[in-house]
């Protein structure tokens, strides 16, 4: 009961912020929230002790779905597009999960990376899809409503906020469930979990599908916001960036990825503005600082503040 109320409150706060935020911040918020979904998926995996260096695969699948589906079928409805992108990414994760759920640690990370790079290679060789230049994404509609070009971002922001709250809410629920609670147990001792009567492989497989679907949703929303898709979304640097933000965020809460993602986008945006020639050093240096001084990520600050309040 309290959980549902919390979600409604979170949605209200997020959507309400859309009326206060300046335009540039609104766009940054859309991208941050959408990328936060990808990071949320990584957090689910990370709690199990797994890191995927190939989330770009699912992120890109979601994005290319939004780019291609309107061209093939004529569908421009954002709800359908994002749902399809999420479903396709989830299905691919499900198929690959049969193989990947057997692996752990570096082998898991590298295999994930390998699959992402296969898709990257295919996209680069596909001249019909614009190769590395990519192609445009058409303007979307919302359940039959086509916003004017000036208010398109406002509407997309509200849509994104709702999607994020719903998905984060579902993931939060899942993490509280018995199989969800199993995540940390698997990380600590797989053998014991098996002796308790749970299938570790199935649990890992499930989490992998969740992470893939979330990445697909994130990619679909980012493609809508940017209005362009290209193979760079699948590249390992994009995947690495998500891992970067995961470390920055910390795995303490389902809210953490969105805070981390927003901080990251703001950091990069202002670093670029004030240091166009060495902004990468500022971004990289901040990660080093977080690893050294906040091993639990930015969320550990919130946790600390909460603990001191009690």
């Amino acid at each position, binding site marked *: 009961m309290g959980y549902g109320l919390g979600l409604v409150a979170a949605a209200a706060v997020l959507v309400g912020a859309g009326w206060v935020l*300046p*335009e*540039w911040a609104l*766009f*940054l918020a859309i*991208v941050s929230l959408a990328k936060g979904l990808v990071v949320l998926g990584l957090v689910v995996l990370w709690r199990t002790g797994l890191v995927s260096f190939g989330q770009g695969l699912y992120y890109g699948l979601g994005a290319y779905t939004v780019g291609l589906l309107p061209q093939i079928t004529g569908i421009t409805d954002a709800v359908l597009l994002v749902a399809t992108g999420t479903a396709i990414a989830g299905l691919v994760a499900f198929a690959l999960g049969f193989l990947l759920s057997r692996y752990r640690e570096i082998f898991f990370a590298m295999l994930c990376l390998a699959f992402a790079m296969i898709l990257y290679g295919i996209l*680069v*060789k596909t*001249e019909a899809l*614009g*190769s*590395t*230049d*990519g*192609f*445009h994404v058409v303007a979307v509609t919302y359940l039959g409503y086509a916003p004017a*070009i000036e208010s*398109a971002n406002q509407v997309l922001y509200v849509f994104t906020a709702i999607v994020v709250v719903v998905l984060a809410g579902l993931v939060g629920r899942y993490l509280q469930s018995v199989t969800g609670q199993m995540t940390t147990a698997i990380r600590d001792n797989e053998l014991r979990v098996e002796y308790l009567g749970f299938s570790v492989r199935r649990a890992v497989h499930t989490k992998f599908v969740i992470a893939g679907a979330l990445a697909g949703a994130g990619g679909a929303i*980012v493609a809508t916001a*940017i*209005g*362009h898709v*290209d193979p*760079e*979304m699948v*590249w390992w*640097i*994009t995947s690495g960036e998500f891992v970067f933000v995961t470390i920055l965020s910390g795995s303490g809460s389902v809210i953490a990825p969105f805070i981390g993602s927003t901080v990251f*986008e703001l950091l*990069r*945006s202002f670093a*670029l*503005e004030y240091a*166009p*020639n*060495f*902004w*990468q050093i500022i971004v990289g240096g901040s990660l080093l600082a977080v690893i050294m001084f906040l091993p639990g990520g930015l969320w550990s600050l919130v946790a600390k503040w909460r603990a001191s309040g009690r």
Partner: protein
Amino acid sequence: MKSTIATKSRGGRARLLGLAAAATLAATIAPGATAQGSLKVGIVGFYTGAAAGPFGIPARNAAELVIEAMNAGKVPAPYQSAGAGGLQIDAVYIDESGGTAKVVTDYRNAVQRQGVEAFVGYISSGSCLAIAPVAEELATFTILFDCGTPRIFEDASYTYVFRTAATATMDGVGAARYVAAKFPDIKNYQGINQNYAWGQDSWRDFELAMKALLPNAKSEDSLFPKLFAGQYGAEISSLSVKRPNVLHSSLWGGDLESFVLQSSARALNRQTTMILTTGETTMFRLGSKLPDGIILGARGPYGVYARDSELNTWFRNAYQDRFATPPTYPSYQMAQALLGLKIAYDKAATAAGGSKPTSAQAADGLAGAEYEAFGTTVKMALGNGRQAITETAYGLSKFDKETGTATITDIIRFPAECVNPPDGAKSVEWIQGGMQGAKCD
């Protein structure tokens, strides 16, 4: 382009009086108006990463030089009036690295947070394709200065987006015409291009143009090493076996230098005539290490291919004095785009009658214009007056041992209408159809 000094001051009565005499004098020659204040212009390019050295930094250097001179009114005639439409250009440098999503986000931030009013930039075709609709949405005057893909104005039409350099179609067609003119008896040709959009498109345009111009020469299977491969041992072995008469390559930057050094070490240049469409960017860096007799391109009549003029002499000397190296084609393309910006705002200032011109007025100012730039004449002829065509030139490398500098011989120039499609035609279809309507006299 005439100089305009007439001024509408917001508060400076004394200044207004001081200028009054000059203004009336000038007004009799060229009626017009200039606005006062500054214009915040975003200058975008790769300032970090692999494309910074060959493209981003030369472009940025040119931007610094030309903007400074423009603000001070020191660019030679007909661009001697200060600023753009009287406005002092306030440049904001923005890095293009980091992927399309970041590039679009930065563009929006620049407009909505930093108050940037116009843009000159973008090297990657991917960036240009992604930015054009955003510029249109935000109604912001934007000049693309270097990116090559013809898709931008062939697949869509824009109001606020311009490109003052010709598309990459010109490079492929020009290269093929040079081969057809100088080496009409070749039996076969091959390509080595990076496996991404630029390399694939460059090879496609060259191959199609060769099929139209020299239908009897055979096109061998082209090589596509990956971007930033750096090592070409296997490719060079394969080429040494096949020995194509002509080898086309659009490699650039570090890849290009590596390939030239590795292939000349194995004497590939003596077995095949190489054509390097972006070769001009590295000719001074390689110096004597660049073998003689290689066909070099500069994506237009820029750098060593620039035509003699007062503008060119000023630009070359000022650039050489300041940066201790001659300007290469990205510098010329940037400088050319900044002249486009000036023309747009000079005309727009007249239309705005002294108040600050809008992006729409600037767009009207540049649409369909024809102007003299540092290297050549720029005609905004395609895409509703928004896409430029220029002449192009190719020539053979020749290292001058006496002066110790890289030079060019056997230059052939091709008029703009000879190497660019007519308005409304799609590049690929135009080349496939035998380049109908090309005027090469």
